[in-house]
């Protein structure tokens, strides 16, 4: 077992760090305040290959592993939660299911556009009445000739209005399993601009304010049959498996937020003088920092382990759930302590940790709340 990053990964890390330092950090406060999607940054990420890191070269990607992608999300999140989730949703929730379940034609049609960053991806599962409970799905797709007619509304969709390619989960019928009737769920690839596909409310949020979170409205939206992703009726499995991967991305985002807040705090406590010495010299500060550092390290090991599991295993639900649960809760705790150690300055927007604390909260919620992660983990423990 080797806990050291390879030279490849270290160099990739230095790339992500300098990209974040130069291109992401200077805009972080502005992105939060204006709530505007950082399109310029995404274009720059595309230019240096960050939009298709774990994608094989034959599909126009970078041909790197999951860990090197996860580390990119982590580094971006150290300075900007918004930018990191844009990458995570794009890669884990849109590219990954097409790569995993798509036909050769679908891959050739969509992956090069997505991996190059010419197009942005999104994933639409959640509805007003269906979050964790996927059986609550109301969005329906009905086959008419060679086309599926899609009707319904998805909500809280990351990259909502900014994406070009969407993975949309919809009910395609009712099936009977062991005497009970269940909704049959399928997945579709939907392109922006398809007639009948429009955007509803832009959500105003506590954090990750620049990520474009929208309602997607489908009103007799016609999807060609060849855009069904995976087999008919396999949509639930696709969604769950996709979320397993997505959770590693969110775990990396949470890890990055924690590390970013921690770095800002270490710098601050060395400089901030009270009672004639830096507050870093007080034992309370030291103990808090020790706990923060330890939890961050533990979270990192879980996140990297989950990334490795995704690389090497068919099923990585438990690893992903543990990583997300622990990293998200660490992010929340560390950012909260970071604000506290900053004192009054911590509550001021210019000092960054205020935003990080708001950004951190969502990591305990989206792509499965911490409670859902515990259900996944417990389910495995008791099976």
């Amino acid at each position: 077992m080797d806990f050291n990053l390879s030279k490849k990964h270290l160099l990739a890390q230095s790339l992500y760090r300098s990209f974040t330092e130069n291109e992401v950090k200077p805009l972080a406060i502005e992105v939060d305040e204006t709530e505007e999607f950082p399109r310029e940054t995404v274009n720059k990420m595309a230019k240096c290959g960050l939009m298709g890191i774990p994608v094989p070269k034959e599909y126009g990607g970078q041909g790197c592993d999951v860990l090197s992608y996860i580390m990119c999300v982590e580094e971006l999140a150290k300075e900007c939660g918004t930018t990191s989730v844009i990458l995570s949703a794009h890669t884990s929730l849109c590219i990954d299911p097409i790569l995993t379940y798509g036909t050769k034609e679908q891959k050739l049609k969509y992956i090069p556009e997505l991996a190059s960053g010419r197009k942005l991806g999104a994933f639409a599962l959640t509805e007003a009445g269906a979050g964790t409970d996927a059986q609550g799905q109301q969005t329906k797709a009905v086959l008419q000739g060679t086309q599926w007619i899609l009707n319904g509304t998805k909500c809280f969709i990351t990259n909502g209005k900014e994406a070009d390619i969407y993975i949309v989960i919809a009910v395609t019928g009712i099936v009977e399993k062991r005497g009970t009737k269940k909704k049959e769920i399928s997945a579709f690839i939907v392109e922006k601009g398809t007639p009948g596909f429009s955007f509803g409310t832009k959500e105003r949020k506590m954090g990750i304010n620049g990520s474009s979170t929208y309602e997607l409205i489908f009103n007799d939206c016609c999807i060609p049959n060849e855009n069904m992703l995976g087999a008919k009726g396999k949509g639930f499995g696709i969604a769950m498996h996709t979320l397993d991967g997505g959770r590693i991305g969110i775990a990396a985002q949470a890890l990055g937020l924690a590390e970013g807040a921690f770095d800002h705090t270490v710098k601050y406590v060395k400089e901030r003088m009270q009672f004639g010495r830096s507050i870093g010299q007080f034992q309370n500060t030291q103990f808090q920092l020790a706990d923060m550092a330890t939890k961050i390290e533990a979270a990192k090991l879980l996140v990297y382990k989950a990334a490795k599991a995704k690389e090497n295993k068919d099923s990585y639900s438990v690893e992903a759930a543990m990583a997300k649960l622990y990293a998200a809760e660490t992010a929340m705790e560390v950012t909260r302590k970071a604000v506290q150690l900053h004192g009054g300055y911590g509550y001021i927007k210019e000092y960054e940790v205020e935003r990080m604390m708001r950004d951190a909260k969502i990591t305990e919620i989206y792509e499965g709340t911490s409670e859902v992660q515990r259900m996944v983990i417990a389910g495995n423990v008791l099976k």
Partner: protein
Amino acid sequence: MNKMDLQEYRGVSIYAQQVDGQLSRISLELLGKARELADELETDVTAVLIGSNVKNLVQPLAQYGADKVIIIDNPILKDYRTEPYAHALASMIKTYHPEIMLVGATAIGRDLGPCVSARVATGLTADCTKLEIGDFPINPVAGKEQKHHQLLMTRPAFGGNTIATIACPNHRPQMATVRPGVMQAMKPIREAKAVVVEYDPVFVCNHKYVEILDIVKSVAETVDIMDAKILISGGRGVGGSDNFKILEELAAAIQGEVSCSRAVVDAGWKPKELQVGQTGKTVRPNVYFAIGISGAIQHVAGMEDSDIIIAINKDENAPIFDVADYGIVGDYKKIVPELTKQILNLKMAK
């Protein structure tokens, strides 16, 4: 080089940089330093003047300390080009054997110096801020000859984080490029005369002669405060956007730039690009004027590495005075305009 050869090298030479027939300031600064070194070595100072139609510059060189001026005057030398200039200076060295050769660390000298040093196969120390005569090794080392009367060249390295003193004990000449603005020109002696030697190194055009297609004299552009050598920085104590005029006038007079503290940006008096401090930029100019800046740690973190910090503040308890080299307790509105006026007067008088 063996000992005999080393002894053949005598005298202190400087490259008398001129541009468009005007002596560059650095030439006079080099003469000032060369004079000191030559006096200590009991030898003389030679200025090497390279250009086209530059004979009229002999007199000022004599007045500022040259005992001898070697002129290499040729139309081919009208504008600076590496090859003819390097050939000229290298040939001079091979002919006249100076023991010390000083060149300004200007955009010209930092091209000419290395080419010449390579051509005459000696060492070159870049961008020196201090030159003195001493022993090498500085302290005697068992089993190693301690050489006397060596040129000890001191220079900052690592972006100013360190200082190194360098010698060139076994090669001649001992060459250095010298940072402009550090050495002091001597008071000119009006009636001074120098021996003038016209020297022709013979120029033969070859593949290394480049063609100058255009020469564009630069107009000042807005500079990044991180690049500024002098910063006039204002804080909340400046009192208002309009009052920054006072700082801008000083900046213009002293060739500096205006920067500010966070309070000023927050008040909307100045844009964020000019902010110094933890949430702004980190600067390390030669001189940092902190005017009406209290000196919160967040500000100090961004400027404490400045070479010289001058603080002007009404509040004598302001923490800025803890980091300032020179602190003035007083009203900047009165002090700064008067300072600007005196600096301008001085410039006019020149």
